[in-house]
């Protein structure tokens, strides 16, 4: 009981502590690919600490909701990220939310963040919010279609069960699985506001989405918003890792050694995921905002196709 509790707590701390490192790593790789020196690997931590120490400058028209939202967003994202299996599956509370609930929890966080964009009553906040919900209105259904496909393959929406099933190799290669992976990558890029959907490095472009929405935040509030986007990036890479590369994840009641292997492989997965993301982002340019629906529509159609194939093939 205590061991289970400790493992669950370790997972919560692990994702919280690793997520700024992942972002720093992606930034570093991107900089090196551009032949720049780049900021130090630990820069995101320093940024967070610096922001947390600063005073908050709050707009005069901001309401109480604006001040509460950073905590809601970080809490929702953090809980969602700690429910995705990282180094071990079947943790104590892993059953308290299945994949659909995790996606919905992220949806709650985004709902509040979009409200924050409208709270101060500026046009930048509005443009960010309205584009964010437009992107979400395509990305969320696409994600649910992916969940449907994977759930039909694994016979479960519980991430631990799904990871164990994928690890068992019973399914082998499936067309649906490939389509779902492709769609999931597109959704992950969109959800994390990465290139080509959005540019995380700037907020001085008219096509910006996420950064425009949080433009009015400062100090500790901004630190929390940044932390939650870092957590979200970690969550999606963990999710792809746990579903499509479940090697090394320790099962329930595994030994300490298995868990250690789990942690090492998890770190390796994060590194590979972050590296691929950086390469992809360097190789591609940003899209116009109204090209995004076509891009995400492709993810939705791929997800639907994958689900349809599952429905049809299950009867054969």
């Amino acid at each position, binding site marked *: 009981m205590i061991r289970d509790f400790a493992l669950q707590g370790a997972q919560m701390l692990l994702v919280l502590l690793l997520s700024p490192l992942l972002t720093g790593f992606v930034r570093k790789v991107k900089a090196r690919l551009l032949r720049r020196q780049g900021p130090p690997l630990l820069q995101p931590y320093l940024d967070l600490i610096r922001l*947390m120490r600063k005073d908050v400058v709050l707009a005069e028209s901001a309401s109480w909701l604006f001040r509460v939202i950073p905590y809601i967003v*970080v*809490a929702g994202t953090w809980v969602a990220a700690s429910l995705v299996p990282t180094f071990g599956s079947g943790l104590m509370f892993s059953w308290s939310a299945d994949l659909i609930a995790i996606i919905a929890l992220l949806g709650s966080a985004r709902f509040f963040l979009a409200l924050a964009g409208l709270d101060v009553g500026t046009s930048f906040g509005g443009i960010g919010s309205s584009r964010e919900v437009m992107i979400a209105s395509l990305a969320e259904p696409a994600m649910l279609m992916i969940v449907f496909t994977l759930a039909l393959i694994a016979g479960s929406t519980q991430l631990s069960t799904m990871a164990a099933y994928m690890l068992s190799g019973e399914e082998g290669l499936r067309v649906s699985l490939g389509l779902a992976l492709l769609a999931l990558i597109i959704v992950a890029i969109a959800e994390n506001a990465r290139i080509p959907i959005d540019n995380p490095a700037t907020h001085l472009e008219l096509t910006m989405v996420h950064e425009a929405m949080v433009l009015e935040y400062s*100090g500790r509030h901004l630190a929390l918003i940044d932390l939650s986007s870092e957590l979200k990036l970690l969550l999606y890479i963990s999710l792809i890792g746990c579903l499509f590369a479940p090697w090394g994840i320790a099962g329930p009641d595994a030994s300490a050694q298995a868990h250690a292997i789990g942690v090492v492989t998890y770190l390796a997965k994060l590194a590979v995921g972050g590296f691929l993301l950086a390469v992809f982002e360097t190789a591609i340019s940003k899209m116009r905002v109204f090209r995004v629906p076509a891009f995400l529509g492709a993810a939705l159609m791929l997800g639907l196709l994958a689900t349809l194939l599952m429905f049809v093939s299950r009867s054969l």
Partner: protein
Amino acid sequence: MMVVYALYGVAALVVLAPVAIALSASPRGTSVVYGASLMITLTQGMIALLSLFGYSDPSSTVTLPLGLPWLGAHFRIDALAAFFLVVVNLGGASASLFALGYGRHEHSPQRVLPFYPAYLAAMNLVVMADDAFSFLVSWEFMSLTSWALVIAHHRISENVRAGYIYLLMASFGTLALLLAFGLLAGADGNYAFDAMRASHPSAALAALVLVLTIVGAGSKAGVVPLHAWLPLAHPAAPSHVSALMSGVMTKVAVYGLVRIVFDLLGPPDWWWSMAVLAVGGITAVMGVLYALMQHDLKRLLAYHTVENIGIIYIGLGLALAFKAEGMPLAAALALTAGLLHVFNHSVFKSLLFFGAGAVLNATGERDMEHLGGLIHRMPQTAFVFLVGCVAISALPPLNGFVSEWLTFQAILLSPQLPAWGLKFLVPAVGALLALSAALAAACFVKAFGVSFLGRARTPAAAQAQETDSNSLAAMYFLAALCLVAGILPGFFIDALAPVTKSLVGVSMPHQAGVEWLSIVPIAESRSSYNGLLVFIFVLLAGSTAAFAIHRLASDKLRRGPAWDCGYPDPSPATQYTASSFAQPIRRVYGTSVFRAREIGEIPPPGATTPARLTVELRDLIWDAAYAPVAEAIGYAAEKLNYLQFLTIRQYLSLVFTALVILLLVLAIWQ
């Protein structure tokens, strides 16, 4: 015995109606009528709860010597009726409580007070009716009383038009139901539900009854394309009545569908579910897309009712499919999902309409473009409205998510259905459901963000006052219910067990005993959700973060002007509006669905006229389905008008010709 008590309650409401006419002149009349309605609906609700939990004999019937002389009026409360009675009276009680405060601002109470208790009585009667005749009479009574409430403010021409269209559609719907019951009763006229249950109609007849029921009950519930009246009529009524119409009356319409299709029509065929699912999927997405294009707060909410009816239909359609293919456990899951959404939607939709009513009272505005910044002036209303927004957007940990989660779980069971049509339809419907959930969240970011957040766009919004304590009490009660049903859904699912048991033979596994109060629809390895734990985790994580940062880092705060990238503009007109917020979505979805066009008029250089951007939206369903019918009726009426100006000889010869033709037809027939 419960049914007798419930009938006494209905009688009390019916008596209250004429009393209200007398009372409406006095200043205390409003409080007396709504107070009495509150008491009666609370009692009715208790009776319904007791019946649902099995404290009454579901087979006990009361026959009153009313209605058809050889039949009488039958009333009964079985599990299904008990559940819907709970929904009706919960909505009725909260609306009455809200109206204790809200109704005081009514400037013509004599147009609202008498019809209000009568309307509540009618909805109670529809659910309790146990024969087709009393069902239809109550149904029509419900339509007429609600129509009277829709045109309560009859000096506004928009309301009169809404009332007219509502009356036409309600009559059309009742006609369809009348025909459906006529077919079910057969040639012998067995109008009692018992007799209908015993006789199984042939496949063709059942198909016809199904279509008529979807049309009849669906037009009242507002399924696309029969929804056109709903967004006109629901917002026109006073807000507590809007809440009843949207939150409760549409559920009574769902009751009609469930009663006929699951109970009276006999064992289902697999393709029945195709019809219900297709209607549900299209309704869900169209409803929310219409809502996104609105900037009238109450009309936006009304369109969301259309969307949620679609979600309920999806649950019911899946239940029909599973029932037809002999998968009772899955059918129980899908039916529970649909019925739980009935309950959930009635709670948060009432809450949202109350909030819209409070805003309307405080500012005199329904148009979101004239609101803004209300969270500063009406913090409590803003808070409860926000709870309603999160709940209706199907976000955890509130109740809307639970029922949609169950619907998704039911969809995930459907590959086992052997029928090929369903294999293609169900994933598509799943995608539509996911799309509607995501769009609903977008829509409520708009609704809440534009009306409550930002800066006040008009002086009315800047000077709004917080609403009264009765209204707030009603809204807090419903908001608490949203949370409780979201974090402890197991108890609500268990309460539905008798209903699913009576309709599909089994019920979902008992949930209240599951560890940590999770809900587990089938097996824990398959799927489980624990709203309570998720809520506690989020609460803990958030407060830990807040505590740690405030203690260890900084808790200082300064106020300053908004940053806005260095160019803040003091005019509130520079904020995003409802239509500019919806612009990206309008471009993505609206260009095909609504033929949305943006027409920019830019004056030539040097001209002093302002530049204009107008958006053109077309309601294709109205253009395709309603406009031609209206035109044809107008054309026919104009042509037939000629008959009014004939001479007496011509009239007599007309009668004679008609007689001859009829006799000829009769002769040929035999």
